[in-house]
């Protein structure tokens, strides 16, 4: 695959660090690396990338020069055991001053943009590029999942953060247990979460897309499976998502999906889900009897003790992730598995096998029960 010119510029200095790596990287393009720090899709990440690439270029230049000098010396000054004693040089003040001053000067070229970027990234912009006030999202860390709250919208959700493209997101973070670190490489850097202090981060997504992120501070047994997604939606899609979350709160009777579950996923947005919500709930339920069964199980099998299906107006503090719109989410188990019917069933039946140590115990669901629960949860679009 041919590499775009910009990517060459990006990869060349690093690739030169070792020949075999160049070979490997020749086949790479941004879309294959959705969690990459080298393919920024947000303003914060771009600022970081710019200063990083400056240091990469300087480091590569210095690396090549110094290693070349080393190799030159190694090959040029090979001696034999019986050679006469070489000239005994003890040092040279002039030379040593030169090679103290030059690195200091080079460092200045790195130091100035570093401090500039530190101050640029520290301040949360007062207004977004699109002129709106930044959207506040509260990130709450849990062992081992992410809670996201939108105080201005009253929405609570988990593990998938929807944000509108072009609007700055003002992230305020806290943890309810141990330290975590919120890391969304393509949009911003990372910031640690503390139990006793709010930390902040911000970014503006520049392109619509699904961006994976991860917990980057070791947080115990399932640190490896504490992942999340940021869904950067077009403003219209974001508004639609917000509207659906408002619907979660008024839904009394479970809504069956009018669409088969295998089409659920990112594509569902385009199929006009809003329309399906206007279909009579009772009629929908009648289309798949498992849905009503699933709702009963959700209430009786202890699910409802920890999980709320209401993104708005539900109980404010729940032990487990909020499941408003779970049927349409890309991933389950905190970003670990694709949200297919098969995976969801497996997760419900064997949570400790998928993610040992999570609070969700095994509730000995029969296949039929698990399938009913899946069918019910799938209606939560």
């Amino acid at each position: 695959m041919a590499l775009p010119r910009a990517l060459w510029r990006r990869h060349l200095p690093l690739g030169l660090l070792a020949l075999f790596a160049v070979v490997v990287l020749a086949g790479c393009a941004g879309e294959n690396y959705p969690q990459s720090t080298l393919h920024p899709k947000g303003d914060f990440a771009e600022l970081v990338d710019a200063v990083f690439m400056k240091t990469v270029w300087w480091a590569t230049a210095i690396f090549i020069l110094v290693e070349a000098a080393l190799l030159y010396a190694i090959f040029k000054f090979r001696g034999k055991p019986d050679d006469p004693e070489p000239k005994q040089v003890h040092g040279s003040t002039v030379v040593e001053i030169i090679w103290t001053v030059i690195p200091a000067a080079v460092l200045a070229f790195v130091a100035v943009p570093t401090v500039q970027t530190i101050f640029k990234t520290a301040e949360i912009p007062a207004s977004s590029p699109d002129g709106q006030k930044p959207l506040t999202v509260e990130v709450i860390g849990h062992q081992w999942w992410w809670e996201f709250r939108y105080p201005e919208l009253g929405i609570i959700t988990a593990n998938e953060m929807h944000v509108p493209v072009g609007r700055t997101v003002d992230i305020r973070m806290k943890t309810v247990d141990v330290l975590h670190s919120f890391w969304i490489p393509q949009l911003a850097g990372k910031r640690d979460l503390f139990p006793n202090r709010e930390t902040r981060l911000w970014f503006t997504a520049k392109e619509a897309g699904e961006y994976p992120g991860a917990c980057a501070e070791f947080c115990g047994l399932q640190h490896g499976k504490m992942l999340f997604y940021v869904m950067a939606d077009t403003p219209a899609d974001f508004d639609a998502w917000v509207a659906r979350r408002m619907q979660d709160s008024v839904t009394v009777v479970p809504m069956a999906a009018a669409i088969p579950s295998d089409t659920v996923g990112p594509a569902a947005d385009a199929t006009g889900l809003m329309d399906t919500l206007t279909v009579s709930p009772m009629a929908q339920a009648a289309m798949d009897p498992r849905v009503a069964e699933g709702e009963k199980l959700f209430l009786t099998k202890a699910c409802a003790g920890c999980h709320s299906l209401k993104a708005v107006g539900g109980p404010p503090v729940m032990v487990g992730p909020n499941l408003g719109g779970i049927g349409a989410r890309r991933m389950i188990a905190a970003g670990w598995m694709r949200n297919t019917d098969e995976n969801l069933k497996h997760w419900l039946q064997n949570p400790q096998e998928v993610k040992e140590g999570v609070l969700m115990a095994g509730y000995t669901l029969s296949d039929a029960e698990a399938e009913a629960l899946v069918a019910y949860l799938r209606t939560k679009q």
Partner: protein
Amino acid sequence: MATTVLEPTMTRTAALAKRSVLVDWLTTVDHKKIGIMYGAWAFFFFVIGGVEALIIRAQLARPEATLVSPEFYNQLFTMHGTTMIFLAVMPLSAMFFNFMIPLLIGARDVAFPRLNAMSLWVFVLGGLFLNASFLFGTAPNGGWFGYAPLSGRQYSPGPHMDFWVLGLQILGIASLAAGVNFFTTILNMRARGMTLMRMPMFVWATLITQVLVLLSFPVITVALILLMADRLFGSGFFVTAMGGDPMLWQHLFWVFGHPEVYILILPAFGIISEILPVFSRKPLFGYSAMVFSSAFIAFLGFGVWSHHMFSTGMGPLADSFFSLATMLIAIPTGVKIFNWIGTLWGGSLQFKTPMYFALGFIAMFIMGGLSGVMHSVAPADLQQTDTYFVVAHFHYVLFGGSILALTAGAYYWWPKMFGKMLDEGLGKFHFWTTMIGFNLTFFPMHFAGLLGMPRRVYTYPSGLGFDLYNLMATVGAFFLAFSILVFMWNVIKTWRSSERAPADPWGGATLEWTIPSPPQEWNFDDEPVVTERDAVWGMKRAAGVRMLPEPVAGDGKGIHMPGPSWWPLVVSLGILSFFVGFMFDKPWAFPFGPVTVFGLLLTTFAIFKWAYEAPDAHATNH
């Protein structure tokens, strides 16, 4: 003090001669035997840490693997880091401190030989205690950095982190005792004429390393005491519900942790600075600059700890300060690398195995140093910290730096330590397999990290582009393990060979090459006198010879060395018991648990016996 002139009693001398080999090694206060034991135990722990690394790499070879459980994985990486830092690299350096420092400064032993033996045994028992946790299936699992509140009792119940918090306190005692001992030895026991600015660079590196130990270990000791109090006695230093602050742990840990990095690398710098001149047949370029750059690095090392904490959001002023301070360290480090190349320049390079490893060290350390500068850029660090990019960086510094230099030192000093030369052919094979395995393991990790792979994850999803880099790293790790086997084979082959090494196989510049290989118990028949830097080259030049005549082993008449003692080992057992008691006394009311009290009494008793031990100098001419 190494020697006394008290008349030995002949009965005692005769009794000493009859001691079994085991008793001899358990009670020895000879810095050379202690050095060899440091090396052997450190290599043992190095192999354990290496096996842990191989299991880690096997688990990460493919995405979504289930070779080990997440719990066991967390134990593995916690113990891998803890082991490699405290039980492998530090004591491997200590092997050279012990064996070489008295020889390099022309002394017959260290200032406090029995204290030296105690340091060894405390280290060994502490290391065994830490690793014993595996036998109970409760190895530490909260990371080598033990961040609160995860390491506290609420989130890490059970004995896992108790082993860690107690084990590190034990090891700290060994390091502090050795720090006092070697600081005193170097400042006070140099040969006549060896001024500070005539000391070999490894001696300087050791001296500065001890200063770092003495000033940084008390800080981690306090941090560990506070965490221990939280875990065992219910205090709330790091419990936010009680008003405690997890940030305090991070500050205390890294105030220790960053100097610790230089504790691990400065001895390596010293070894390289010994080897390069000898195999270039030319003095170290810019000796004074090398001394002052080491001191400057150590000084700056205490002012940059918060660069480990950029992602905690300290604010732009603190970020800027710690970014710039960190960048400053690149200047003295650069001076070192340039001066090493300056040493090679115009020399007559002799390509023996120690030189191979020393040159490999420079080439790899440049890499680790440059990626270090990248971390100093605080905004960039927000992407890199806690990713595999950092893992790659510090392995280039710790393996490509410390381990390559220690290996160079092993090949260089092996003939002096054991009287036999390691095989050159196998040595060069060892070098190339190490370089290939090392780079194949750690170079791809730069990319895994930049492409978004966090550290300390027991598995990763496919589809994020990490797969290939991880597979490469795993293949490389097993290749690297193979290179260690080559080294072990070389050691065995040399062990079985009957060929003796000469006193000065490399044409050395320092005092250890003037005495037989291996040295006699008393090191120097006559206390040497030094009149210049690279003293032995000066002697050779004055005598108009390329090699000094092979020294004849003396009979040690009239030289009295300190006698063996059981008390260092007993004190160490007392200390171990004191700390172990904190784990097993829990059903009893602290602080009156029997095991702890027994340890305290045993330690006190043994210290008194030690202090009043007969001044049992024994003649070496038995």
